[in-house]
């Protein structure tokens, strides 16, 4: 029993966090807003050089062969910097799905694409039915698209994009118009369905980790502002009414962390039994991020309601990610259904499932 991250895992996170701190500033994010693409190729290339795009791809296919657990802190760091590039969608959702497909139905096409994805040369996006629109589709080279249980690999030339404005100026949302064909179908039936389920869980958990990072960043911005801004001759942060707004955010953040970290472990070791852990993570990260957005906006006062104040870069991301990869209703329903199952393992002795009873396959 060891619920801590290894030195390697922490080192990878701090390397990425340092890069993001220096290279993805609020000012640069605002520059992305002005561009049609909203996507900075240099940043993308640097992230690929750091190994992010290769993380979940197996070594045999040109990647690093890391686990989802190894990468969860990276996703949190991306959230903290409000990174606009869809590195998470590419590296931790699409690449992982392609890797899963390749493990079941290997082909030269998937192998070549994996190498391109790992190198960051090919941008791969996923379209799962739970999300009506796809972020940064215009920058993608190919898509993995859900059609019933089928997994289709579709080149960008085969897809018509209908692009629409996002609430979050850092995002570029599109609906995809395309035609499924026998040729584009990589996998179908039970296997396809199972992989889409895994993808949904990875997507929801990756989103949860970003939401946690967003919440942390908003609180630290509000703490700084409340420490500097003076009214009645003293910093507003000396007032308990202000302190308590932020303390409430801190409590939610603290108790979302271990839930997300446990879910990352479960997704890594038992990807087909991760629904409960992932849904829990998504719900508490969403709640933490929404509370942070609301309370931090309040702490900034009128400034918090301006376009000029950077806070909304993070707040708007939180508001949109809250609804992506299943909203709270979807995820709470999954937990509710599970709680009603007569066989659900409830209670203090089942915090980590029933593995201690000797059933090595059981992680609930």
């Amino acid at each position: 029993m060891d619920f801590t991250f290894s030195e390697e895992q922490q080192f990878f996170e701090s390397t990425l966090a340092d890069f993001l701190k220096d290279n993805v500033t609020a000012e640069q994010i605002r520059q992305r807003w002005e561009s049609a693409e909203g996507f900075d190729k240099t940043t993308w290339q640097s992230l690929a050089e750091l190994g992010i795009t290769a993380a979940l791809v197996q070594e045999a296919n040109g990647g690093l062969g890391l686990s989802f657990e190894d990468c969860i802190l990276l996703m949190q760091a991306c959230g903290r910097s409000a990174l606009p590039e869809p590195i998470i969608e590419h590296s931790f959702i699409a690449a992982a799905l392609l890797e899963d497909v390749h493990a079941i139905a290997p082909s030269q096409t998937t192998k070549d694409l994996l190498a391109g994805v790992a190198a960051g040369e090919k941008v791969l996006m996923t379209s799962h039915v739970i999300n009506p629109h796809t972020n940064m589709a215009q920058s993608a080279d190919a898509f993995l698209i859900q059609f019933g249980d089928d997994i289709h690999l579709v080149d960008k030339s085969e897809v018509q994009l209908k692009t629409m404005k996002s609430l979050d100026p850092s995002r570029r949302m599109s609906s995809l118009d395309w035609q499924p064909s026998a040729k584009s179908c990589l996998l179908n039936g039970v296997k396809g369905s199972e992989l889409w389920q895994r993808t949904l869980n990875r997507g929801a958990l990756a989103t949860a980790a970003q939401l946690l990072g967003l919440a942390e960043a908003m609180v630290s911005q509000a703490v700084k502002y409340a420490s500097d801004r003076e009214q009645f001759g003293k910093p507003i942060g000396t007032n308990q009414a202000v302190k308590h707004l932020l303390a409430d955010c801190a409590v939610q953040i603290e108790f979302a962390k271990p839930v997300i970290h446990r879910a990352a472990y479960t997704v890594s070791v038992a990807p087909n039994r991760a629904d409960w852990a992932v849904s829990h993570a998504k719900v508490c990260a969403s709640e933490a991020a929404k509370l942070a957005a609301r309370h931090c906006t309040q702490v900034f006062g009128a400034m918090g309601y301006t376009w000029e104040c950077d806070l909304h870069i993070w707040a708007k991301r939180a508001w949109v990610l809250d609804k992506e990869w299943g909203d709270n209703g979807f995820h709470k329903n999954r937990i509710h259904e599970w709680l009603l199952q007569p066989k659900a393992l409830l209670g203090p002795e089942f915090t980590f499932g029933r593995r201690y009873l000797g059933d090595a396959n059981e992680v609930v």
Partner: protein
Amino acid sequence: MDLIYTSQQNSFRMEVRDWLRSHVPQNKLPSFDTDDGFEAHRAWERTLSEGNWGMVTWPKEYGGRGCDLIEWLIFEEEYYRAGAPLRVNQNGIFLLGPTLMEYGTDAQKARFITEMAKGNEMWAQGWSEPGAGSDMAAIRCRADRDGNEFVINGQKIWSTRAVYADWVFGLFRSDPESSRHHGLSFILVPLNSPGVTVRPIPQLNGLPGFAEIFFDDVRVSDFNLIGEEGQGWSIAMSTAGFERGLMLRSPARFQQASRRLVELYRARQNDILDLSIENAVVQCYMDAEAYALSTYQTASRLTKGGKIGAESSCNKIFWSELDIRIHETAMSLLGPYAETEGVGMKYHEEIAAWVDGFLFSQSGPIYAGTNEIQRNIIAERLLGLPRK
């Protein structure tokens, strides 16, 4: 990260489970805030101690098992799973115990921890005073040194378990010239000393769960001084304080309550009209789980030599609000049957337990530092907001 118990941890769990199965009383004990109930719980503490289960984290020479925090969590999980009696000596084992381990001399540990572990001495806590509640540094109760003794004069209030306990530990002002958090000492006082008057205070349930204690020239040996004279404040606020925060309410307590809540919900599901209940049940279960995961993460870090940090100040707010939510939801599920503790209903005992728990949950955000004080601590120490 490896979230699988070792085979050693698994056998420990099974050992705990087996022992509890054959020792936990068949019938629920009466409340420990009654004459009979207190003695019944004292007897249970002795039973625990005979099996060396009194406090598993203590070293073997003091009646413990030298367990690490993960094993402590496993013990607690099995303890709540078995529905074993509440720990009447929790002030001693969870609050004073860790302090003695860190600051007590060997002689003090041998004297006090051993008796505590044996279930012979029950402890009350003596922090608050009429003029020192949330503002604990305003303590006025005096301990004047006189040779090898302290002479104690003044008053404590809200002293949990003081009505039936044998001893009280607390902070006293040993330097009459001092103010605020200076000049305080951490002293242990036998409640049967001449000059001690204990006046019970009935709680919301009508039972005397706490008391006022009056000290009138009470003489105690300076053997009972923990740490240095005047060091009381830092002892009370020390690392041990954080660990106390970790151990005060083990997650198993809330996981077991949430399990019972889900069972109640399953039974009452078809009679529920309030649309928010389903959501509340889901939220309670998730939060109990989150508290457990958070405690495991902290325990894991500490086991690997890490230090507990200011983030632990979030615990108390989280579990106390969770406890209220669990019990409010149960009350909603019981509807009008809760008022009369379900007299005549099939699950009468179960309903009475929910009502008791509901009343007790009201105290959670108040004791052990109100949640408002906790929010100040989080804001200043964890987030770094300015004090003034």
